[in-house]
């Protein structure tokens, strides 16, 4: 199986915020923390586009590189997770992340910044799977139940696709071929490698082969 990925189809997103609500409800995310949000570009202008944004679980995650306590790890399925027991809430990952994914609860006294919280691809964290401790710290572990992230499964227009990278890329390809437009995939270049980056190419690919159809950074 390839690595887990998110793909947001800007042609389909209707800014309903169903993904945001599903994430909040499924993971019991505290007030003030938004693991997922919907961003609208050219709001109110004809042709506006909306995209659902959360942690993209990058191939070469900048948050992992800048963390001073090395609390990040990548699971076998390519999901970027972190150990909250180790996190010191310094905020470096927030500055490094191109998607603004890391969130910091500020409910404590004097606006103190708590431990970082972010999308886990509904894969929990480094606690016993589906345990109370895991749910309390990281949210639900749907992957361990054989399910996909709640946001993607809840999406009414199926604008947000989540799951095995090869499978969702194939679904998207079929969709683009059918409608004949809108092949740009927002954020894929940044998260999973730019087409020109040599490391982003699959083994044995011809030079100049794009990493994803119409990938946009």
């Amino acid at each position, binding site marked *: 199986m390839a690595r887990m990925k998110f793909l947001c189809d800007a042609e389909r997103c209707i800014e309903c915020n169903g993904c945001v609500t599903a994430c909040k409800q499924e993971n019991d995310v505290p007030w003030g923390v938004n693991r997922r949000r919907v961003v609208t570009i050219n709001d109110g202008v004809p042709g506006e586009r909306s995209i659902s944004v959360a942690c993209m679980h990058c191939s070469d995650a900048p948050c992992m590189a800048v963390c001073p306590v090395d609390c990040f790890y990548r699971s076998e*399925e390519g999901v970027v997770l972190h150990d909250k027991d180790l996190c010191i809430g310094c905020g470096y990952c927030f500055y490094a992340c191109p998607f603004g994914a890391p969130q910091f609860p500020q409910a404590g006294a004097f606006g103190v910044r708590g431990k970082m919280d972010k999308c886990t691809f509904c894969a929990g964290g480094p606690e016993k*799977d589906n345990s109370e401790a895991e749910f309390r710290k990281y949210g639900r572990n749907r*992957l361990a139940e054989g399910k*996909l992230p709640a946001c993607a499964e809840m999406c009414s227009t199926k604008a947000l696709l989540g799951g095995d990278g090869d*499978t969702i890329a194939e679904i998207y390809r*079929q969709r683009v071929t*059918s409608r004949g437009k809108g092949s740009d995939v927002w954020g894929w270049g940044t998260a999973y490698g730019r087409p020109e980056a040599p490391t982003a190419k699959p083994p044995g690919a011809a030079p100049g082969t794009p990493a994803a159809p119409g990938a946009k950074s």
Partner: protein
Amino acid sequence: MARVTQLAAIAFGAMAALMLAGCGERPQVIDYKQGKYQGKPDEPPYAAAPFNGNKDMWERDIRNRTQNQNEYRRIGS
């Protein structure tokens, strides 16, 4: 007079060297090196029930579930 000229030459030389040093500026972007994970180990998603370590079964379930997002397949095109 000769001493003043000598001092001026030294000052000029030092200033030129200082100004030239600006051309040799080092890149100021830090090249981060990937650290090694220091936290607790995590178990794979297929380790616990209902998969009990059966990775193939888990992968099959996830693949089928992913296809639920494909309405061309789900409801027919």
